């Protein structure tokens, strides 16, 4: 098995998917030619505060979509709602043609959607390789009864280990495979979390602030890995504050403010959008937004 076959999602033409975005209007809730994730009328209230109120949003398959917005805009809340880690007060979500409103969070991974967390969740007192092997789905040895009979799961376990080693190698972490994950640096933990997510063999990867707390030396490598995911046909949705990353790698940007989606468009279009300028700087601000300087 080569690196490429390991996590390539078949049937996704990445170049065509990216090109097709050219015809999508630059407006909130714009319909996409081939959406993998669609959410309608998603509302989440915390007491009197409406944290998220999204009328309609579509995420295009095979591209990198960035979700940005000022602090408190509801990005992470929407993220949690899309991955079922939180339940909306109302609304529907459809992933890859299947309604996932009633699907528990742990089953989402089996549908092919996997997420990472803003505060990295490396499993500290487990080795790096154990972190990786945990990610594989449908393991026979994860049943309590079968677990005491190693011959029932040994072969599968070996295959999983080979796949895990290949991924670790791709993320340049093979030399740390037997270290405890708790000994890794912040950036290495982000890499591990991303690599571990790929063990699920997802169609869609949701990254919650993948660059937070990562030192600049690792940033480039992380960016390349994210692009690598897309080029293998995975759909990527990420929440990020780092505008460099948004400008550099995203194919499409969705901007949230006060729980609503206020703008959509290719990354270059966002800085000139009046609604975005208002959201970040307050209204009556005349000039276009220099996102690098402001964020």
């Amino acid at each position: 098995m080569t690196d490429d076959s390991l996590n390539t999602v078949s049937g996704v033409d990445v170049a065509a998917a990216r090109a097709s975005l050219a015809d999508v209007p630059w407006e909130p809730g714009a319909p996409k030619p081939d959406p993998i994730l669609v959410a309608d009328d998603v509302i989440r209230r915390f007491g009197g505060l409406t944290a998220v109120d999204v009328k309609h949003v579509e995420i295009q398959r095979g591209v990198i979509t960035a979700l940005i917005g000022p602090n408190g805009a509801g990005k992470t809340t929407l993220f949690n709602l899309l991955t079922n880690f939180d339940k909306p007060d109302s609304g529907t979500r459809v992933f890859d043609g299947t309604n996932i409103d009633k699907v528990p969070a742990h089953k989402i991974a089996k549908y092919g959607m996997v997420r990472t967390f803003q505060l990295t969740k490396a499993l500290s007192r487990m080795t790096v390789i154990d972190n990786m092997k945990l990610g594989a789905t449908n393991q026979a040895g994860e049943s309590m009864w079968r677990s005491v009979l190693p011959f029932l799961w040994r072969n599968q376990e070996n295959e999983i280990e080979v796949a895990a080693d290949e991924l670790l190698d791709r993320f340049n972490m093979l030399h740390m495979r037997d270290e405890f994950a708790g000994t890794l640096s912040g950036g290495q933990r982000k890499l591990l979390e991303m690599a571990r997510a790929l063990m699920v063999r997802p169609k869609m990867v949701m990254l919650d602030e993948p660059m937070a707390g990562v030192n600049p030396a690792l940033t480039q490598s992380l960016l390349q890995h994210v692009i690598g995911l897309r080029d293998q046909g995975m759909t990527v949705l990420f929440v990020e504050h780092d505008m460099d990353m948004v400008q550099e790698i995203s194919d499409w940007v969705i901007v949230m403010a006060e729980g609503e989606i206020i703008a959509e468009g290719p990354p270059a279009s966002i800085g000139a959008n009046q609604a975005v300028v208002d959201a970040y700087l307050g209204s009556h601000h005349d000039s276009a937004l220099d996102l690098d300087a402001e964020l």
Partner: protein
Amino acid sequence: MDISAIFDNTMRGLVGEQFVYFALAAIGLNIHFGYTGLLNFGQAVFMAAGAYGLSMMVVTWDLNFWVGVFFGIVVFPFILAVLLGAPTLRLRADYLAIVTIAAAEIFRIVVRSPSLDRWTGSSDGISGFARSFYDLSPFDPGSRYFFDLFIGNQMWVVLIGWTVLAAAVFISWLLVRSPWGRVLKAIREDEDAARSLGKNAYWYKMQALYLGGVFGALGGMLRAIGTQSAQPDNFITDVTFFVWVALILGGAGKIMGPVIGAALLYAILNFTDIVLRQGVESSYIPESIMSGTQVGQVRFMLVGLGLVLLATFRPQGILGKKDEMALDDR
């Protein structure tokens, strides 16, 4: 000073009946806390489930001894795990702690209620259910065995206890090194991460609660068989904390941790008891410092002091690794 009595008592602590009961319960608690991170502060109720499961089936309902064993280690812990786990395992870890400590006391108080005397024997408990067990004993009740440490019936209990203990260690070793055990550890480290990777954390915690409860029930059942009675006050809250002490002393999250911990705990308890008792009797320790009736309390003070020192200088327990423990704080 009678050196051989000191040696005998210490050895009895190290390998005897109390060691077996508490090591088994601590193996269960190790699956709860050491591997899954479940805060079970009511292991005594699982032990009581084993004791009463057996004794009530045999005495109250007049069933076969082995049917009682089945109820004690399979059915009763299952009912308990579902009752305790279903409402709490979706919540934060603290809730299980509150519910288990309360459940253990509720069970004990209900069982010793006079109005249930017909079924549970109230505060006198139930006896006369272990005959089938001792009928199988190959040992002569009148003789002493194993370096003269145990009389025949004790020897039979201890021998079966060691066998069950060895099996429990082996099974828990198989479990925690399997992919199933890996999921438990992942839940201990971070439940949401496990969930994001497609693991049903709630279901795994329920399984762990039940399995650890089964080991606890085995310990409690052997205790009832060894003392030939199931009494409510054998399962007071202190029992849970002895189990915790054994686990922490030996090292949580290590296969042999609970076994080593239980052996050392009872060796130390027995050793300090006999040394102090002999000291008082032979007037090495003057009456003004301690009387014979105070020995029981003083030895717990000494064990408490030892635990404080352990927590200060070796918080990871005897088998634990310090650098592994430190990873938590990062």
